């Protein structure tokens, strides 16, 4: 039982991070129908920027740990958001009228670019966050020790999800975002500034990814230039699992993927866990072709 519970928290911790990255993925997808393969790399850049800022500004000497993290988060958020907007401007906007997949290739190109530029700037070595950044507080839940940071990560992703969901579903701008996602021309006819709406999406999505990168950096300590690719793929899987474009779906998909991996590793085989996770994904999609929470609008003919 304790083993089960431990693995449950392990799975949720991993899943929380997947969810966080998947939120940004789904957000961008929802509007542009673009699988932004560069999203994982923006995540990775978030991790690097966090480290650079931390060491360059010597923050840890002046502020409390939470102060440092909060300040870092804000800065990373802003910087990655800027990068996201530039990415959209340069690599995606010219392709808005083109076939959907054209932008995917552009995204892949951008991903290669980001990985290699980080490699050239920072070197190919692993970089490491200071170990004492985050107090290693452990709280007890039902008598089981759980590191506080895991709870914070989970909490962060829940808060972001709820926030995003409310924003998209309940606000006027959110409705405009969804409208632009469906038919940009018609959205223009409603007086929606489509360019701005899309830019906004590319502020939010990458910013979320960047912050997730920062969290991974702080939590696990070790970052390198290829990490975005692995996390990006997982997050994409999570987003699909939940129903891509669907914000609560990204959350559910992320957590579920984390749990599947944890339990597959715990009770089956570690070496096969990813294969197993994909099998579950495929089975779920066979039963629910648009993911767990994806809309099942029968196409009206």
């Amino acid at each position, binding site marked *: 039982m304790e083993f089960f519970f431990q693995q449950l928290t392990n799975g949720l911790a991993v899943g929380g991070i997947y969810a966080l990255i998947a939120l940004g993925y789904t957000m961008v997808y929802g509007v542009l129908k673009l699988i932004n393969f560069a999203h994982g790399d923006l995540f990775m850049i978030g991790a690097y920027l966090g480290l650079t800022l931390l060491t360059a500004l010597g923050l840890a000497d002046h502020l409390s740990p939470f102060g440092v993290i909060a300040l870092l988060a804000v800065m990373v958020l802003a910087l990655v958001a800027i990068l996201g907007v530039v990415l959209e401007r340069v690599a995606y906007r010219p392709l808005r009228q083109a076939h959907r997949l054209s932008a995917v290739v552009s995204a892949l190109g951008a991903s290669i670019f980001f990985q290699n530029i980080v490699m050239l700037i920072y070197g190919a070595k692993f970089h490491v966050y200071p170990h004492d950044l985050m107090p290693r507080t452990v709280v007890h839940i039902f008598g089981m020790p759980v590191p506080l940071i895991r709870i914070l990560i989970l909490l962060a992703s829940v808060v972001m999800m709820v926030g995003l969901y409310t924003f998209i579903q309940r606000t*006027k701008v959110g*409705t*405009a975002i*969804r*409208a632009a996602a*469906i*038919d940009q*021309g*018609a*959205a*223009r*006819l*409603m*007086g*929606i*500034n*489509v*360019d701005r709406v899309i830019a906004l999406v590319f502020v939010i999505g990458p910013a979320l990814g960047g912050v997730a990168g920062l969290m991974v950096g702080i939590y696990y300590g070790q970052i390198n230039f290829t990490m975005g690719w692995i996390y990006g793929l997982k997050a994409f899987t999570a987003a699909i699992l939940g129903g891509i474009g669907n914000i609560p779906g990204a959350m559910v998909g992320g957590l579920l993927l984390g749990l599947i991996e944890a339990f597959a590793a715990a009770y089956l085989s570690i070496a096969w866990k990813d294969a197993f996770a994909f099998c579950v994904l495929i089975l779920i999609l066979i039963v629910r072709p648009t993911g767990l929470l994806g*809309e099942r*609008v*029968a196409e*009206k003919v």
Partner: protein
Amino acid sequence: MLLKIENLHVKYGNVEALHGIDISVEQGEIVTILGANGAGKSTTLMAISGLVKVSEGSILFDGEPLNKLPAHDIVARGVAQAPEGRRVFGTLTVRENLNLGAYTSNDQQKISQNLDWVFELFPRLKERRNQMAGTLSGGEQQMLAVGRALMGNPRILLLDEPSLGLAPLLVKTIFDTVRQINQAGVTVVLVEQNARAALKLADRGYVMEVGHIVLKDSAANLLANPDVQSAYLGGRG
């Protein structure tokens, strides 16, 4: 003069669809544009709304050039359009679609007034206000498209075949509505295949053929014009 189009040229790729047309619309008028399929009527409306690029010529709205403005600014200035093909937002609800029609307005009271009015015009929409627009029947979507354009208190309303796919009873409603809106002070540009009804409603009309204006006159004269009759009114109705 509310709207003045001069020497308008529009190109799709290398093909020119409009070869220099002139249209003017006075404040408070209903003007109809007739023409066969592919004559360029929809293109004209899209050019006014800023969705297709103007390659030459000018569009003045209230004395101000529109053709350099982005589409959303044009809407904000009071130009609304119910486009061809309806283009409702399929995965949004009817309500959300209607709210988007009033995107540029911030006057909540006015918005809810308009909503009531649209629901009164099309009770069907009220019934279905929480249904996804994409699953509405063709005619229901058409109602939504027109209703959505009415939501924003436009100064000028561009209607592209608003009666398309509507049942005869509703076609009447639509034309009555257009008259009502017009009487409330909104200028209307109406593109219609149902030429007879359109001419009966309109003050003036233009006839387009392959990207040119070939005829302009008062609606009554056009209705009586034998060329128009044989080409667009199918002899007798």
